[in-house]
């Protein structure tokens, strides 16, 4: 049984002041109506490819002192990999935001170069001490990037209208929770660095909470779209703040407590924080009630006060953060954090240059502390550029949310964008000692398969919402039944109406 696809509204016409006009003179294949946004995306994508290739060239120059054509080949290969994603956007989301994908590609390129750079340092150290050379993390990450591109294309191709996702909200909720529970199952779950977050199948390990995050958000957004009227209208007032009825809250609270509980059991502070923030923001946007923020903040405080004495690793993290340089801490509990800070300090304003610092001195330099590695070699300049790129992704995502014509799309895009922003904040803030350190990955940059695959899916969903938002409004019900323009663009539909 297949439902008829929801008809998509036609593309909005390009404005004359559009940047696209600049490239309008370029010869284009006849007969294909190239969407204007996609040309811009291609130009930016080429630029992202140049950034990544230059980074690799700088690294090679620092490492062996000369350049080779191999670098160009690798750069071209990297570009072609993501060009597949670009082609998919052309095919499946032609009106989507043109900035999101190239920024992601630039970040991914920088991440890959840094992971490769740390590989070089590791194999050099292994060579000097006579140990056997460890396997290349960059190669593994490249395979994961390929997988991420495939997932990206699949999401765009399968989710032709994000509204269809809302139909599977409850299924998604169940799948998400099961996904979170999987690592606890003996046999397939594994502990890495004290947190039981990973699934291990053969040589591959996967962190299901990264994907569960998206799936649970879909459930949450879908559920709230149905219930938001009840949640925001039927409420009791306590001390001037309007609170919703308990029975409307039930499923939300159950999902929230379940996911938080699981995360606490799994010892993953960072993801708990991420889920929590995601829930609060989506609830707030759905109900337009600031009281949710108040409730959320109170719950957070209660959670923090309860967790602190109960969980040793929470105390260690907080102590390492507050007293990073006191007593024995720099050589024990806050060792990683402090080494990362030394990396940032060594970078200064302009950085040491790729391949010329010592980022390998920091533990987990290519995963949790990759920002310290980038801060050391690219300096404050590079750090600010990277942060700005993340801000650009988040704001473009928020723009898609604002433009979305349906409540589900708005909630989904807001939730995804905010989660991304919060993840970057918790991750980078932790490494920079702005807040206590929690184990999260830096989206698109850190070494780690689940992270890049899940985040590629997030970008695909944001592009999907953005595509819907950037199309011209659907014709009003009282519009003329016969639109000559529509006929010329989609002749088959005329046949269907009979």
């Amino acid at each position: 049984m297949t439902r008829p696809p929801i008809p998509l509204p036609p593309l909005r016409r390009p404005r004359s002041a559009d940047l696209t006009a600049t490239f309008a003179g370029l010869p284009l294949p006849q007969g294909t109506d190239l969407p204007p946004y996609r040309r811009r995306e291609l130009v930016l994508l080429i630029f992202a490819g140049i950034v990544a290739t230059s980074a690799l060239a700088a690294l090679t120059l620092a490492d062996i002192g000369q350049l080779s054509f191999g670098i160009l080949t690798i750069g071209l290969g990297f570009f072609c990999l993501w060009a597949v994603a670009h082609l998919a956007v052309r095919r499946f989301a032609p009106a989507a935001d043109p900035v999101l994908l190239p920024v992601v590609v630039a970040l991914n390129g920088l991440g890959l170069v840094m992971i490769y750079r740390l590989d070089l340092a590791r194999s050099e150290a292994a060579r000097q001490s006579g140990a056997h050379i460890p396997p290349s993390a960059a190669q593994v990450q490249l395979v994961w990037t390929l997988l991420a591109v495939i997932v990206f294309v699949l999401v765009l191709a399968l989710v032709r209208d994000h509204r269809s996702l809302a139909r599977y909200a409850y299924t998604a909720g169940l799948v998400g929770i099961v996904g979170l529970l999987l690592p606890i199952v003996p046999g397939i779950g594994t502990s890495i660095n004290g947190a039981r977050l990973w699934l291990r199948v053969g040589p591959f390990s996967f962190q299901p909470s990264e994907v569960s995050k998206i799936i649970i958000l879909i459930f949450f957004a879908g559920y709230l779209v149905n219930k938001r009227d009840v949640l925001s209208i039927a409420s009791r007032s306590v001390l001037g703040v309007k609170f919703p009825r308990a029975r409307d809250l039930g499923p939300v609270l159950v999902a929230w407590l379940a996911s938080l509980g699981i995360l606490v059991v799994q010892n993953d502070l960072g993801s708990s924080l991420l889920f929590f923030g995601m829930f609060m923001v989506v609830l707030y946007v759905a109900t337009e009630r600031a009281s949710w923020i108040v409730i959320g903040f109170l719950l957070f405080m209660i959670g923090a006060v309860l967790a602190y004495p109960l969980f040793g690793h929470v105390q260690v993290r907080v102590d390492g953060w507050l007293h990073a340089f006191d007593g024995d801490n720099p050589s024990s509990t806050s060792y990683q954090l402090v080494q990362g800070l030394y990396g940032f300090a060594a970078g200064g304003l302009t950085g040491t240059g790729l391949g010329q610092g010592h980022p390998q001195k920091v533990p987990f330099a290519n995963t949790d502390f990759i920002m310290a590695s980038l801060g050391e070699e690219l300096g404050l300049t590079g750090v600010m550029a990277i942060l700005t790129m993340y801000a650009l992704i988040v704001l473009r995502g928020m723009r898609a949310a604002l433009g979305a014509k349906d409540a589900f799309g708005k909630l989904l895009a807001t939730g995804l964008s905010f989660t991304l922003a919060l993840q970057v904040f918790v991750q980078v803030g932790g490494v920079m000692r702005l807040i206590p350190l929690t184990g999260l990955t830096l989206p698109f940059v850190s070494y780690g398969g689940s992270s890049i695959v899940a985040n590629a899916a997030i970008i695909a969903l944001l592009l999907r919402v953005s595509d819907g938002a950037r199309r011209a409004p659907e014709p009003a019900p009282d519009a003329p039944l016969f639109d000559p323009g529509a006929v010329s663009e989609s002749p088959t539909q005329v046949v269907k109406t009979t």
Partner: protein
Amino acid sequence: MNRPARKVAVACLVLFAALLVNANWLQVGQAGSLKNQPTNGRQITERLERQRGPVLAGDVEIARSVPSNDQYKFLRQYPAGKLYANISGYYTLFTAAGLERSQDVLLSGDDDRLLASRVTELFTGKERRGGTVVTTIKPAVQQVAAEALGDRKGAVVALDPSTGAVLAMVTSPSYDPTPLASHTEKTATDAYSVLSGDKAQPLLNRATQQTYPPGSTFKLITAAAALAAGRKPDDRIAAPNSLALPQSTARLPNFDNETCGDGETDTLIHALTISCNTAFGQLGIDLGGDALRQQAQAFGFDSTFPGFPLQQARSVFPATLDGAQTAQSAIGQYNVRVTPLQMAAVAAAIANGGTEMKPYLVSELRGPDGKTISRTSPKGLGKPISGDIAGELTTMMESVVTSGTGRKAQIDGVSVAGKTGTAEHGTGEPPHAWFVGFAPSDNPKVAVAVIVEDGGGEVGTGGAIAAPVAKQVMQAALDSP
């Protein structure tokens, strides 16, 4: 729904703004203090990539960097081994000491005064190198001082009284800093743990970091206070065979139960010449603890020498004293503690007509191109005694060497002024042997302080054990150009 979504967007921007501000604060604002954290091994690693400047004593390189073929480009060496270890210090993978530590910015090439040569390097493409530190040490004097002290524990400091320049500074036992600078972590840490675990404390620079009871050498300060109070060298002062200490049943005897003068009184000059304990004990009681303390502080007690580039301990004169303690302090016992550098500075001040010069160890800083960046000009530290008193003290100290306890410091054809000390410290150990003095006494070129800890293991006086060392050091200083 757009209104709250916009607010969420603003909240996201605030998060990013916080990160950006924090990044600036971390990488520019705090960078300096983070780089100087003791647990930050990155700085030193980075600097092993460049050629660190040498430390010179005259023409002798006491520390230098040579190209190495391991994971770093340059290896630090100390060609003279243990002879200058207390001055150069060491530069390890993790930490640094001595001049290597205090002159680090220049030696590493990070000194702002090297900016001009750094700009040149930028254009000529040469790698950044460190500047040169030239010390005031005269290698010949240093060598003689170390040989004269031999294997005995102790220290020698020789100063140029007219400038305050340190001509020699020897501590014994010493250590070879080269293994500490090894690029092999294990070699370095093993060498360090052996040295730091050694009971003889070879890493301690006894010349400036260790304080000792000054014994009878402190009588110079008591005598200075007496002269300042109007006494004359030929005045007769009480000098009983045994001094009854006030507020105490104890008695202060003379060394070896000798008799001073006629057994009742003695002249001030003769009391110093034979180092009469009872005379100076009584003198201290008469002058009072405050007068002694003021005189000691005028010479630099209870503070350290400003700007001196090695770690110093403070020489102390007790803050409160009763009568008996005053008498004991006046002869350099009780809780009076001095560094050998402080006693050398006392002798130098007397030699320099009462003006105490600020001791200094670094005479000149040079850029990587060999050009002088700065030269130390001698500075007065104060005038603890008048010129007249300095002259009277000089006469009294000459008498110590010509006819008193310091005869073993005599040099043929040169008039020498000095004072011996035999400092009791606890029970069971032989006393410390001291000699402080200067030569030639009519035109002083060198002032010395010598301490041989526990008399080098034999029971003997400062005159017997320390004076011969001082003699050789002064002789070497007068012989060297």
